[in-house]
């Protein structure tokens, strides 16, 4: 069952790693589609 346990560990590592990578490149639709600052161009 070593292969099974290794696969469980790998799936956890891949999930956490993928999340770290995606967060670092700002993948979320909120991050990609909106500005962090409000801008008022006219009254």
């Amino acid at each position, binding site marked *: *069952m*070593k*292969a*099974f346990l*290794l*696969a*469980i560990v*790998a*799936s956890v590592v*891949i*999930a*956490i790693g*993928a*999340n770290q990578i995606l967060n670092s490149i700002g*993948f979320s*639709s909120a991050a*990609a*589609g*909106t*500005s962090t600052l*409000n*801008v008022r161009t006219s009254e």
Partner: protein
Amino acid sequence: MLRLLGLLALIWTLAVPAAAQEAPADARGSTGGAQTLEDILRRQDGIAIDDSFRSDLTGNPDAAAPIDEQLGTLGGASDPDLWRAFRYGTADITTQARTPAATTLIQDGGMWWLKFREGPLLSFGAYLLGGTLLALTLFYMIRGRIRIGGEKTGRTVTRFKAFERFGHWLLASSFLVLGVTGLISLFGRKVLIPAFGHETFAFLAVGTKWVHNNISWAFMIALVIIFVVWVVHNIPDRTDLHWLAKAGGILGGEHPPAKKFNAGQKLIFWAVIVLGGSISLSGLSLLFPFEINMFNHTFSTLNSWGVPGWFGAADLPYPLEPQEEMQYAQLWHAVVSLILTAIIFAHIYLGSVGMEGAFDAMGKGEVEEQWAREHHSIWAEEVLNETKSIKKRTST
């Protein structure tokens, strides 16, 4: 005579408005330009109506009253005019958000998706998965465990190497987690919130969404691994026809000859590759909203080939609004995932309680020689001959 003429005039003046009410052209006039009862009934029955009388009624800024007059500040478009423009996507909307769907404030076309997602989709999923489990239970009760027929040899044959088993378990473990978290998302609003309350489900939903989104990468990597290591053994050939004709001997007959994978396993393999690949694509489309659009182009291509007409159906909707693209991706993702889950239930059954000796193949990588001879006779012969020839070479 005068009285008779007066009577005729009275009848005519009374009859004209009555006739006008019956005439469809003037029916809308009676509602002041709003939709009629007939429009509402047709829409409720899902019958298409020409609603240009509403979609085009979005005001006229060119004829707007001066700003210093009553109603002038509305700029020629009343509030209802503005809401109609929102509904039909014709309003001039400016927003700081830059996503493709940011300027769609009302998506009228999404109601069918919401109703389908909250009703028939959940019923389909429950019946499919529940029915599959029930069928497998009944099969087990009728057929029992498929035993190794001949006498066990005590010798084993290597069935799967460590890397093959790693790929399988990476795919299996991630799929099971994706299945459970996916079902929690799918049944959350209609089943889990009424059962456990909003606060409990909110906590659960945030966690399952994180897990579902991120473990999906392990599933996709594993899908590539198993495709690469097993595709060569899963190309259909003539032995599969013979195997299928005898239903794999599952109903008690003799085991038909099979190579490393029999026809049933090949069907599972291609179902996992094709359906799993499709689930991955629609999942990526959902993971990166509005970036990967699968359905707009597909519907356009199918329409251009006239495919809907082959089935007597109208053209598929095109072009799709950004939200519609996501809605189709969600439905596709859910339906294909439910079908693959039902198939995997059968696979898990046969790989564990359903067949003696089968779990060892993935558990240890080694199977009883007699099991190999019974279920994969051609492959077993090849492996045993190869082992003999290696022993012969090393002894000489």
